């Protein structure tokens, strides 16, 4: 467990300004690897997607995947970066068993994309995140640590390596130091990564699934005494694999660094690791132990010099910036900021959009996805888009309600049947005979019978105790097996009792 002293968050904020920086690695969804033609498909048996190149066998040579370069440029353009007119790959030299060549092909002082910025919102306040660079590199293999009691690297007896991931294309996106976020620093960091995720998904260049590691985040933070302009010593917390852990880890580091500084100590420049189980950071490598990577231009590859025409063609493929799109949707749908934010958080925006496109009113679409369907998804531990129902089907169900064919209650049953794979809403209504009895004559007979069966209640209502009508509605619905429109039943009861 951690021994760290933590300072109260508000107290830290009274004395210091946090400065954050984020490094995000995105695994591209190209079908082949960065420098060879092996498949990148997830989940293959170990070492079945390897060749001389990604195994780093003597004599093998890399050849750049054109699609990866294209994806990198598109990400750069979406981040409002400049695109280099000429740049090179570089070798980052360090020994590690998961790196087959014991160097990583990356980019050093000549990134493909540089000097961009994006805007994110936290509590309706905009923050500008300056982007230092976005560059291309390759992923490493995957190790499993064996023989220890905890499955952790530290006490393992040996490790087993699978190189299927070795050489999968990565884009590393690095921010410049982000100033002026104040107490919102952790939320801004989270909002930025969330923004990146949505933007990259909109570009279609990565699955950006943090839980599968196709988006990974390292977060830097330092504290600057209020009024000072000198950056404090920073720590870098590695491999944060959820939005929540980004926010929590930064909040933790702010408290920890605040306590160190307040006690007159100095923050040690080091990497730290987020322990999800205990929700604390743990020290890793110190600055003194940092590797000397001995970068130099990769001699097995030639420079990349994207022509202006190519870049402009790619620029034309950049979809609307997610934030702009969200503002537009909020306007046209008439959602409150809270409603939209919740929909974004639940990853429901695309689904609501497709439901609206199928003819559903925006608020009705929102209600279905954010209440009934979200509850079902949470119960089964699924994301909304993993539910087996489409926007069109949701719109169809709502259409049946609007036509008076289904009550809300029946509609929920239809929704469950769709999720269970029983067919389209219309088919389910027909097969199960779920539609409301809208035949007034049949309903009239049942209502009359219920009044006759309950003379006391009927008398009370006639005397003005209108709330008693509920009992009669319930009796009618019960006789109708729920296949009646409650509003219509109420209307008919009141009309007959006032006769």
């Amino acid at each position, binding site marked *: 467990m951690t021994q760290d002293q933590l300072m109260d968050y508000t107290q830290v904020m009274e004395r210091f300004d946090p400065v954050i920086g984020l490094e995000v690695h995105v695994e591209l969804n190209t079908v082949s690897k960065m420098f060879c033609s092996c498949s990148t498909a997830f989940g293959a048996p170990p070492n079945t997607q390897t060749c001389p190149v990604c195994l780093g066998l003597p004599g093998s040579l890399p050849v750049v995947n054109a699609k990866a370069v294209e994806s990198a440029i598109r990400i750069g353009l979406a981040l409002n970066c400049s695109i280099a007119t000429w740049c090179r790959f570089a070798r980052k030299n360090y020994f590690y068993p998961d790196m087959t060549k014991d160097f990583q092909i990356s980019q050093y002082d000549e990134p493909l994309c540089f000097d961009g910025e994006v805007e994110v919102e936290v509590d309706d306040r905009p923050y500008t995140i300056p982007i230092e660079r976005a560059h291309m590199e390759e992923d490493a293999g995957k190790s499993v640590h064996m023989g220890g009691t905890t499955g952790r690297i530290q006490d393992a007896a040996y490790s087993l390596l699978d190189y299927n991931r070795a050489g999968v294309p990565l884009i590393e996106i690095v921010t410049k130091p982000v100033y002026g976020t104040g107490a919102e620093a952790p939320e801004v960091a989270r909002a930025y990564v969330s923004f990146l995720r949505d933007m990259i998904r909109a570009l279609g260049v990565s699955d950006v699934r943090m839980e599968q590691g196709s988006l990974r985040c390292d977060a830097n933070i330092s504290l600057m005494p209020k009024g000072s302009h000198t950056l404090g010593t920073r720590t870098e917390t590695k491999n944060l694999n959820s939005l929540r852990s980004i926010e929590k880890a930064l909040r933790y580091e702010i408290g920890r660094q605040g306590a160190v500084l307040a006690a007159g100590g100095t923050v040690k420049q080091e990497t730290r690791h987020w322990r999800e189980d205990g929700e604390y950071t743990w020290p890793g490598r110190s600055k003194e132990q940092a590797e000397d990577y001995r970068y130099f231009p990769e001699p097995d590859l030639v*420079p990349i010099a994207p022509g202006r025409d190519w870049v402009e063609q790619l620029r034309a493929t950049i979809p609307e910036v997610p934030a702009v799109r969200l503002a537009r949707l909020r306007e046209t749908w008439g959602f409150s900021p809270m409603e939209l934010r919740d929909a974004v958080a639940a990853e429901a925006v695309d689904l609501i959009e497709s439901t609206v496109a199928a003819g559903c009113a925006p608020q009705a679409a929102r209600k279905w996805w954010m209440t009934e369907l979200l509850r079902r998804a949470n119960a089964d531990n699924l994301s909304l888009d993993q539910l087996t129902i489409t926007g069109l089907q949701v719109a169809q169900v709502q259409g049946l309600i609007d036509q008076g064919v289904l009550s809300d209650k029946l509609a929920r049953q239809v929704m469950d049947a769709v999720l269970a794979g029983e067919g389209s809403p219309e088919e389910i209504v027909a097969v199960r005979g779920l539609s409301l009895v809208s035949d007034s004559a049949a309903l009239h007979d049942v209502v009359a019978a219920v009044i006759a069966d309950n003379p006391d209640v009927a008398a009370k209502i006639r005397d003005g105790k209108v709330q008693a009508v509920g009992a009669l509605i319930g009796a009618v619905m019960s006789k109708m097996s729920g296949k009646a429109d409650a509003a219509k039943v109420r209307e008919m009861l009141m009309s007959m009792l006032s006769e």
Partner: protein
Amino acid sequence: METPVTLTHAEVSKLARLARIELTDEELTAMAGQLDVILDAVAVVSQVARADVPPTSHALQLANVFRADEVRPSLPPDAVLAMAPACEDDRFRVPRILQEEQ
């Protein structure tokens, strides 16, 4: 590099560690002396290399060499693991890793 460079035993030892090469004391001593001679001989480059000369990392004047994003067959897994000094469960078996990931 106006004065001749000399590498100490400790410096060579540090470089050897960075390069993951185990050297005996005799090897270290011999190498330190030889490296001094070589560094002295190559020091001429810093006298010739004026500030206004651009560097060349590669003589070749090529750019934009790409391949299409297409999958081709990988090596047969047997051939991959046949090379391994040790393997287990279709994976390469390696001694315990103490260093931190990068």
